[in-house]
């Protein structure tokens, strides 16, 4: 089975709110000294793909749309166990929103050819549009299964668990298909060993540009973007917290209940 995993390199989401800065002019987060990492759900997707390969054999190709710096993310994925990596050179496109990103990724997956399963994280962990998986399915005309914590091959298709409103649903889907992966206890991303990291440095990274993918500016340039960011700001948190008084915890506890009555909350 050939599994393609789409990942995005993002600003470390663990960065503390104090260290988090944005560039209001350019309407992007200011990376500053913060580290760049693979999105948390994308890591879950990689783990799912590698486990599937370990069970049934096959090949995992990791793709990212990014700058040269995103090679770090690809190396990380290779160290985890991906077999091949593709960097799509972001500078040749203007992918400012998910519909363009998905179109570019879909073109890359078509160019790879023979892909049986496409995985993405459920959302990037950054702008969190959470659209790319579904849009890839539309672009590639493949079935789509979202919010998948675990999956396995079954005959010529796949058996997937998915989170739905009200519970977990087990589904069967034909291959090829697209699934967006959510976190679960059994897809916690593995930590690559030093040996694997060294090996990964020797694996080649393929680069695709606009010409390789046959995409023109109408499809993937500025004009193709359907959304406009008007403003990006850090919401002012006016702390309006009223602290409950009391000699000790027990007194504060009782006073809290009375305060809720006083404020007509209960």
């Amino acid at each position: 089975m050939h599994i393609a995993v789409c990942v995005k390199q993002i600003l470390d989401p663990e960065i503390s709110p104090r260290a988090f800065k944005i560039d209001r002019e350019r309407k992007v987060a200011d990376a500053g000294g913060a580290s760049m990492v693979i999105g948390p759900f994308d890591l879950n997707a990689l783990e799912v793909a590698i486990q599937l390969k370990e069970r049934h054999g096959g090949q995992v190709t990791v793709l990212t749309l990014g700058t040269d710096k995103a090679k770090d993310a690809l190396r990380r994925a290779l160290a985890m166990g991906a077999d091949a990596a593709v960097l799509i050179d972001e500078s040749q496109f203007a992918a400012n929103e998910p519909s363009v990103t998905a179109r570019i990724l879909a073109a890359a997956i078509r160019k790879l050819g023979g892909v049986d399963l496409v995985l993405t994280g459920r959302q990037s962990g950054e702008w969190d549009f959470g659209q790319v998986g579904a849009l890839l399915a539309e672009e590639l005309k493949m079935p789509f299964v979202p919010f998948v914590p675990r999956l396995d091959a079954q005959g010529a298709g796949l058996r997937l668990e998915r989170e739905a409103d009200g519970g977990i649903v087990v589904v069967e889907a034909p291959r090829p298909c697209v699934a967006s992966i959510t976190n679960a206890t059994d897809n916690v991303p593995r930590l690559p060993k030093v040996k694997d990291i060294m090996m990964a440095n020797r694996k080649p990274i393929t680069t695709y540009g606009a010409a390789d993918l046959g995409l023109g500016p109408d499809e993937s340039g500025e004009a193709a973007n359907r959304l406009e960011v008007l403003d990006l700001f850090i919401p002012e948190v006016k702390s309006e917290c009223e602290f409950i008084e009391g000699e000790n915890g027990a007194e504060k506890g009782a006073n809290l209940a009375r305060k809720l009555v006083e404020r007509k909350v209960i």
Partner: protein
Amino acid sequence: MNIVVIGWGGDGQTPSAAVRELLGGARRLADQSGGQVIAGALGAAASAAQGMVQCGADRVLTVDHPALREADADAYVAAAKAVCDRAGEALVLVPGDRLGWEVAPRLAHRLGAGLVTDCVAVDYEAGRFVMTKPVYGGKAMARLAAKTAVQVALVRARAMEAPAPEAGRSGSVEEVAVQVAAGPVRVIERKREESSGRVRLEDAPVVVSGGRGLGGPEPFAQLEEIAQLLGGAVGASLAAVDAGWISPAHQVGQTGKSVAPDLYIAVGISGASQHVAGMSGSKTIVAINKDPEAPIFRVAHIGVVGDYKDVLPSFLAELRRIKGA
């Protein structure tokens, strides 16, 4: 501009809470931008068509089909598309539940529409719709506009206000014949979510959540007692779920459930942005934490600095006295 509300779920003649909220928001936006509210009543929601009129719809288009009763996303995408095709240029509001996250991008793709997901606000400003969503785990907010003729907003629960139904309100109801077919993804089994049975976390008017500060699974029994007394549900932070103290079904946060109850009580939760992103819309937030510097106090309205072990027993006792329980 016309505002389309995509409606599903609900039981009988009353639209679901999510749909009533969207109708409230749609009415406001239609009045401001000079258009009609067109509601799509899909699947079981078709029987709530009159209820949708009473909540502000001018025109209700019903689509029913067995595949819609099975929550088949492919069928919902086709049905929603049929409704949107009849509305022309419009802003389309979709409920931000799991089905919505699945349907909205595919619907937007077929409509050639720009889509903003996880909207906490949609406003009409200077002749266009402005959609606000949290980004970077809630550390920042983005305001976006779509450049397309048809625009789609996936709206978070409780972001809009449900109106009181008006019994005498008039509006048209018409059935739309659509070619709807079940998709290639076949349901094998549905595992109902384990829950304490009373009320769904997302719908609960009161949520009592515990985090890493609880130190183990046992204290959740106390949270459960408080929740029961207040008619609410128990939530948890990612840390508590990761520690295995409570099932992931209870997780509140960016990667768990988004809740916006009237009262949210955070016990032993530090207030990582990840968690806050899932509960910051709560009307009243109470935080109980040992650490006076915990970030949770920045979003809390009422704070108790103290050890939950000392605070909770007397809080519970006083609650019982107040409730006469």
